[in-house]
């Protein structure tokens, strides 16, 4: 059986079950609020959001692979394009673009053209250090780790903090070889 052709983010999003984005937005808001109450420190909340995103990423990657029919990406460039064009679209219904590649092709920016997490949101004075959308960076990091790519994902621009866009920097730290050695003692 020939492998099924990869599907576009639009086609997948159109074919999957969807929910009102407001339910998603408000539920995410409730999570952030719980963390602020539980952890008190904004830095701790940033860390926890990233961790929660990571936990989601290591699970969500399989759905991405199952629904998109994507086979192994040739390189990190293709991977980044997949995240932006297929990943963001099929899960959040938004488009993202990849830009600002560095010379050796291991670091780029993903720019969100829309961001359903932040509807209704304004950071109060007490939360100015909060990376409200930090869950997204965790998701990307977790998902890529499951396909053998160690990355570092950080926010470069955040409109809630007064910037003019939502920009994530994704940096490839290490690509674990796919054929890891099978030894008796492992």
């Amino acid at each position, binding site marked *: 059986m020939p492998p099924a052709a990869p599907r576009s983010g639009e086609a997948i*999003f159109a074919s*999957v*079950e*969807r*929910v*009102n*984005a*407001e*339910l*998603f937005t*408000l*539920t*995410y*808001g*409730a*999570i952030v*609020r*719980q*963390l602020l109450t*539980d952890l008190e420190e904004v830095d701790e909340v940033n860390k*926890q959001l990233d961790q*929660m995103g990571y*936990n*989601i990423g290591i*699970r*969500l990657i399989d*759905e991405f692979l199952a629904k998109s029919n994507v086979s192994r990406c040739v390189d990190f460039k293709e991977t980044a394009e997949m995240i932006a064009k297929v990943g963001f679209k*099929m*899960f*959040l*219904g938004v488009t993202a673009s990849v*830009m*600002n590649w560095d010379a050796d092709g291991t670091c780029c920016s993903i*720019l*969100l*053209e*829309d*961001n*359903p997490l932040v*509807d*209704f*949101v*304004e950071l109060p004075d007490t939360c100015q250090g909060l990376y409200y959308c930090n*869950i997204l960076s965790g998701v990307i990091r977790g998902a890529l780790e499951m396909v053998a790519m160690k990355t570092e994902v950080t926010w470069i*621009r955040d*409109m809630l903090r007064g910037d*003019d*866009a*939502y*920009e994530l920097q994704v940096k490839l730290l290490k690509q674990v070889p796919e054929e890891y050695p099978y030894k008796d003692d492992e």
Partner: protein
Amino acid sequence: MIGAGKIKQYANILEKPLGKGKQEVSLSAFAFLFSELVQYNQTQVDNISELETRLEDAGYAVGARVLELLCHREKGNRRETRLLGILSFVHSTVWKVLFGKVADSLEKGTEHEDEYMISEKELLVNKFISIPKDMGTFHCGAFVAGIVRGVLDNAGFPAVVTAHFVPVEGQQRPRTTILIKFAEEVLQREARLG
């Protein structure tokens, strides 16, 4: 041009027009987020009833906001002041917006005057969730119960709201009932209003 996203920037969020609520995300995105909400809260509690309480609190925060949002958008800044009105608002308007459908049924409790039940064959939040046997009667619908309580409470109808599995004859899976028990003051007020 680099960096110019499509999102328009507003100096003040209040200037941003309120969305029409037509935007969607995949059910999967919500399911993964909800699953993580449950997992995080599991790390914060000692027992199942605390877990339910925390999920309910999270839901309450959603409900309070949903009430405001929908009263403004769907009802021209008016809200229901009568018991049956607010119940039908929850069962129809709130359910439709949040879960994409009207709830399967709204019934008055047969044994107690102050109890009402909203039932659903399969609650959206439960779609992918199997409760382990050792968790007894635990129900992730506590989150939805919290949403309902948040709507009711902020509309001036304080109530105790809980989620339960109810076995259905001939069905493999139980349905869910959201049980609403109104505070005494609510019923007294209703009686006065006649």
